[in-house]
């Protein structure tokens, strides 16, 4: 056949289960027990309320610049609730929902945005990486951790995140290339929230979908409705099961929307219309899932009220805990850099401590 089309064997699918109004496609509906469903809802709500609170704290000048996540709760919670503790998650920089589920305290989450390294100090026993600021730079770590699992012959998996913007970086390509070649147990979740600061999805790449980028790496891709927590859950769990079974990685594009600004330093009015935002507000993943749960009888007004109260209390405590621990010893920037601290650095540490003492800044030493 001297001229013919090449058959592409990579599977690229689309999946949604709940529609915009929370109506379920019963043929695709996963059989999840009520406790798990309720837990998922609770975590989505907690994520949303914490996000609102952080935005608020920023406006009051009580933390620094903050990157809100409103609208992306389903991607975060749906992707990780099915994992084991021994599995790993690798965040981008906008996944507090993941941290909350995985066991990070609210205090620690706030600490990051408050300007404290403690916000990246992964809690003991939690197999996560912290926020990765350089976009997409965390992707090879996903491959590397998963590769470690394979070398150590564990049946654990890694679920990791990147934004739509992050798919343009070389790290995306290299991480997926290696993942494909070494068939590592990794699930790459793209949070396609339509925007990378002011750059819309269609200016990020001429590829029609992000899921189809999997074709270049020899494994499957799937685009899911990222505002449908059931679809996210199902797609990720299928990928996780395949990864555990030694069948290699999967690329998942979760189509969602960043309802708020990029960060509190950003003015989205400069680059997008209110209509667009309104259109997406109608697809908000939280009320959509709530509707489904109410229809199912898992949730009612009373439960929602209780949840809200609980969450408010948890957040109040977290903020209080954070604000009770604002003291910082600046010389600590020397203390964790190396496992074996060089003598040279001890000298500089002493120089810094002496300067601070002269300047009347406490070092706690």
């Amino acid at each position, binding site marked *: 056949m001297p001229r013919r089309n090449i058959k592409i064997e990579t599977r690229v699918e689309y999946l949604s289960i709940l529609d915009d109004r929370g109506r379920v496609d019963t043929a695709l509906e996963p059989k999840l027990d009520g406790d798990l469903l309720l837990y998922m809802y609770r975590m989505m709500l907690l994520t949303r309320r914490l996000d609102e609170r952080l935005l608020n704290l920023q406006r009051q000048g009580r933390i620094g610049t903050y990157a809100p996540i409103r609208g992306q709760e389903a991607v975060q919670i749906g992707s990780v609730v099915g994992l084991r503790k021994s599995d790993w998650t690798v965040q981008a920089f906008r996944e507090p929902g993941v941290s909350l589920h995985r066991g990070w305290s609210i205090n620690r989450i706030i600490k990051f945005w408050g*300007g404290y390294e403690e916000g990246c100090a992964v809690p003991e026993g939690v197999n996560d990486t912290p926020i990765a600021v350089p*976009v997409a730079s965390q992707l090879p770590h996903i491959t590397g951790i998963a590769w470690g699992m394979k070398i150590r012959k564990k049946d654990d998996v890694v679920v990791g995140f990147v934004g739509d913007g992050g798919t343009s970086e070389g790290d995306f390509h290299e991480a997926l290339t290696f993942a494909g070649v070494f068939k590592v147990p990794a699930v790459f979740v793209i949070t396609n929230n339509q925007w990378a600061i002011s750059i819309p999805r269609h200016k990020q790449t001429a590829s029609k979908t992000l899921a189809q980028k999997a074709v270049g790496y020899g494994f499957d891709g799937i685009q899911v409705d990222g505002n449908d927590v059931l679809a996210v859950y199902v797609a990720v769990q299928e990928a996780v099961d395949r990864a555990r079974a030694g069948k290699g990685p999967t690329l998942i594009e979760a189509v969602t929307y960043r309802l708020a600004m990029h960060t509190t330093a950003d003015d989205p009015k400069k680059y997008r219309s209110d209509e667009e935002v309104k259109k997406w507000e109608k697809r908000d993943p939280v009320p959509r899932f709530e509707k489904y749960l109410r229809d199912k009888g898992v949730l009612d007004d009373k439960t929602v009220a209780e949840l809200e109260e609980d969450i408010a209390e948890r957040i109040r405590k977290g903020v209080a805990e954070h604000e009770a621990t604002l003291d910082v010893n600046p010389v600590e920037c020397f203390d964790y850099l190396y496992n074996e601290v060089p003598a040279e650095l001890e000298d500089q540490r002493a120089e810094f401590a002496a300067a601070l003492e002269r300047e009347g800044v406490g070092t706690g030493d």
Partner: protein
Amino acid sequence: MAQMNMVKAINLALREAMTEDDGVILLGEDIGQDEGVFRVTEGLMKEFGEERVIDTPLAEGAIVGCAVGMALYGLKPVCEMQFSGFAYQAYHQIEGHMSRYRNRTRGRYNMGMVIRMPYGGGIRAIEHHSESREALYAHNPGLKMVIPSGPRNARALLIASIRSLDPVIFFEPKGIYRAFREEVPDEVETMPIGRAVVAREGSDITLISYGAMLRPTMEAAEDLSEEEGVSAEVVDLLTVSPMDTETIAGSVAKTGRAVVIHEGPRTCGVGAEVTARLIEKSFFHLEAPIRRITGYDVHFPYFASEQAFLPNAERIRHAARETLAV
């Protein structure tokens, strides 16, 4: 003459350079529609169109690599790295091509291109947004590494950088982007790349600095004079590489003492280079060891500690005092 801050002055320089040469093309993340995360490119896409003020996908390597291609083609690309901490994604293009192409082709192709990047601390930003790594580029042959210290020289040096047919890394001290205003002349003004200036004359000690650190250095000099009667000369390097050895050596020949001040890490930093050159040129004028007041050899801390971490006037004054006491 108009009063303006550094953001406006840089914006002015870009507008002027684009007006005088239609080969000047800006490219970067969020520089068009959004006008830059610091609003440095305000109004430019509107004025010059989407083909000359280009919002790129998110990939620093390609921003620089494509700019290398444009420069080969004879255009004058001016790239923006959103923060200097993300230029490492492009470092292989900077080192491997931008800094080498002219030499490699024996002058057949110039690399008339500029990479602008905000650098340095002081804006309460998250990790990777506060560092100062000018020494990385100063150590790299083939580049010119420029760092203005105020609105007027920022505008003049950026014009000179864009006009130059050599590749320039242009560090913008974002900590003082909007800290103060200066008179900026109405006509296009340039300053020579590679020349330092004596920002304050003095006779007892030379304080050598650049970029955002010039302000605390000047403050220290004033304090020393007012409170201790010490006459400190301040040299503003403006170009870190090629370094203006003549001016610093000239000053130290007069004062016999020096302190170098910068934010970046100490080891193999610009302070080390200044010291080494002064030793080579001015050893017998020196009456005391040269002191370095710099960032320490650790990563820039998260912002709760940044004000404590950054070199300040008090630390500079202390070092000057100790140097004078020798």
